[in-house]
């Protein structure tokens, strides 16, 4: 063997390495933000993931799932944009802080201790009913070891079941229906994706407690589950790669939903395409299909509009001139969107979080239907970092975030029920 070749190769690689791009200074903050935002099922999406923000500026934060749009935004540009655009909704003065969320929506906001009796930290997953929260505790980062029912009035906590997953496998996508908690595990080989297509498995346990049971499928489900729903004795699921399927809750044959080969569950029975993850900033959920009735709907998107993210009834995005809008899917009732582009889209078709100008920094929750705003109470720390709350698309009912020694729980469905959107 030629030593010359090997020596030349060493030199060529060594010199080539010097031509590599340099890392930006804020790389760590961006990576952390994106890591936290990355979907591992609904737990991190609809439930408003908390994200670390550098400098108190809502840069890397206002994105959904793996949406590439937000982190690509230049921080400097965003900073100024936020200052001008996080301007007040029509009901507020710039310098005036909104009232705290618990004052604005007293029936829909709870503050509960951030630790369970015994001192364990927990992470809210979803509502079981109007008064009960589904929580999980973690054995390690994002690796659940148990799920609990937590009564919001009184704080009674009941373990539903222990969760045991192999190394590198995480329980995600928890949803409640037919008296069951249902979730998925995706065998992703501890981050090693070189082993080919991954397989998603589904599990259920009665809300009353018990041992998790696998929802058997007649063939392995190849792909990564993204959203789950329980409907009429069946589990409906969609795959990250696209496609909506159902299987009996007791296990059985996996059946594709006709016409939904590229679709993702948005809010059952609504499924749509493209899904939440749109690598080339396509419009999220531009096309919708009602999986039960076959009804179809295509959102109006105008030339030059960007970052458009649609829900079941509304869309939000950016106009060609950079200003942000929200409107109905058919293009009607277009209004300016306070706070600039909502990269996550609107939660429950009407809620967004908006950054407060610095100082004091922080965020408020804004209801576009009533134009009410409530301060989430988050403030940057001494280093200028703060968490950011992102209610997302999907059912988007639960917003939760830690605040000091407490967890703040907001039920968007309850706020919406008190003031349904009116006719135009």
């Amino acid at each position, binding site marked *: *063997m030629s030593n010359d070749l090997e020596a030349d*190769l060493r030199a*060529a690689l060594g010199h080539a390495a010097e031509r590599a791009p*340099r*890392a*930006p200074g804020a*790389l760590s903050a961006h*990576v952390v933000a*994106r890591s936290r935002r990355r979907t591992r099922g609904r737990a991190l999406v609809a439930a408003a993931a908390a994200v670390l923000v550098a400098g108190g500026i809502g840069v890397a934060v206002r994105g959904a799932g793996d949406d590439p749009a937000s982190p690509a935004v230049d921080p400097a540009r965003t900073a100024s944009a936020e200052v001008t655009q996080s301007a007040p909704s029509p009901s507020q003065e710039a310098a005036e802080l909104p009232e705290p969320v618990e004052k604005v929506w007293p029936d829909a906001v709870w503050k509960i201790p951030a630790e369970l009796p015994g001192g364990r930290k927990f992470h809210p997953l979803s509502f079981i009913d109007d008064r009960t929260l589904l929580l999980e505790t973690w054995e390690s980062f994002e690796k659940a070891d148990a799920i609990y029912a937590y009564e919001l009035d009184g704080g009674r906590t009941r373990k539903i079941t222990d969760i045991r997953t192999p190394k590198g496998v995480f329980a995600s996508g928890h949803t409640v229906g037919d008296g069951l908690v249902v979730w998925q595990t995706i065998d992703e080989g501890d981050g090693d994706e*070189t082993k080919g297509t991954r397989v998603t498995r589904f599990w259920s346990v009665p809300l009353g407690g018990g041992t998790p049971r696998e929802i058997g499928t007649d063939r392995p489900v190849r792909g990564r589950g993204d959203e789950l729903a329980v409907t009429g004795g069946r589990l409906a699921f969609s795959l990250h790669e696209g496609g909506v399927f159902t299987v009996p809750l007791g296990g059985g044959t996996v059946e594709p939903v006709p016409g939904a080969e590229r679709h993702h569950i948005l809010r059952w029975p609504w499924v749509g395409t493209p899904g939440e993850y749109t690598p080339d900033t396509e419009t999220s959920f531009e096309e919708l299909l009602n999986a039960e009735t076959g009804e179809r709907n295509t959102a109006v998107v105008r030339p030059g509009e960007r970052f458009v993210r649609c829900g079941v009834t509304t869309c939000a995005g950016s106009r060609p001139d950079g200003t942000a809008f929200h409107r109905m899917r058919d293009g009607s009732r277009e209004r300016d969107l306070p706070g600039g582009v909502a990269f996550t889209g609107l939660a429950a078709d009407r809620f967004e979080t908006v950054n407060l100008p610095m100082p004091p920094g922080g965020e408020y929750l804004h209801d576009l239907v009533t134009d009410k705003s409530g301060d989430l109470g988050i403030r940057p720390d001494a280093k200028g970092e703060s968490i950011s709350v992102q209610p997302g698309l999907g059912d988007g009912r639960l917003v939760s975030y830690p605040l000091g020694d407490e967890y703040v729980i907001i039920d968007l469905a309850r706020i919406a029920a008190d003031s349904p959107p009116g006719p135009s």
Partner: protein
Amino acid sequence: MDDDSRFADFVAERADALLRYGYVLSGNPHDAADLTQEALIRLHRAWPRVRRKQDPESYVRMTMARLHIGVWRLRRRERLVWDLPEDPHTDVPPSDVEQGLWRALATLPRKQRAVLVLRYYEQLSDEEIAGVLGVSRGTVRSHASLGLGKLRSAVPHPTAADRSAP
């Protein structure tokens, strides 16, 4: 010091080195940045475990190598969190031989290239390479031999005559 500050310190200290590694692994700045970003995101997600049980640097380098040869590349590419400069700066223009080798490396299958980078840039033994890529030592040797063979035939070695053996 909490986990996030430790992670931030790690990224601040090692990101440029990881980008260099990603660049020789992939051959272009975009894939280098993409690989580095993705591997760091995964490192962050596994941070408490990795810090406890492994060395973050080797974890992230292993992740980058496996991502590069894996199906991930074909399926998905996230927008970078930063803009790449239009023109990478170059201090020293590479020699003709080096340029030829660099171009020839681009024609190799990913696994062959990865093995050569791990051996001649990372200076790993074949056994270590086998561990990083999750393949057998025999596979490492055959990839290395095939890869070197292709480089040898693609790049005639004018210097070989000058460097007469001692």
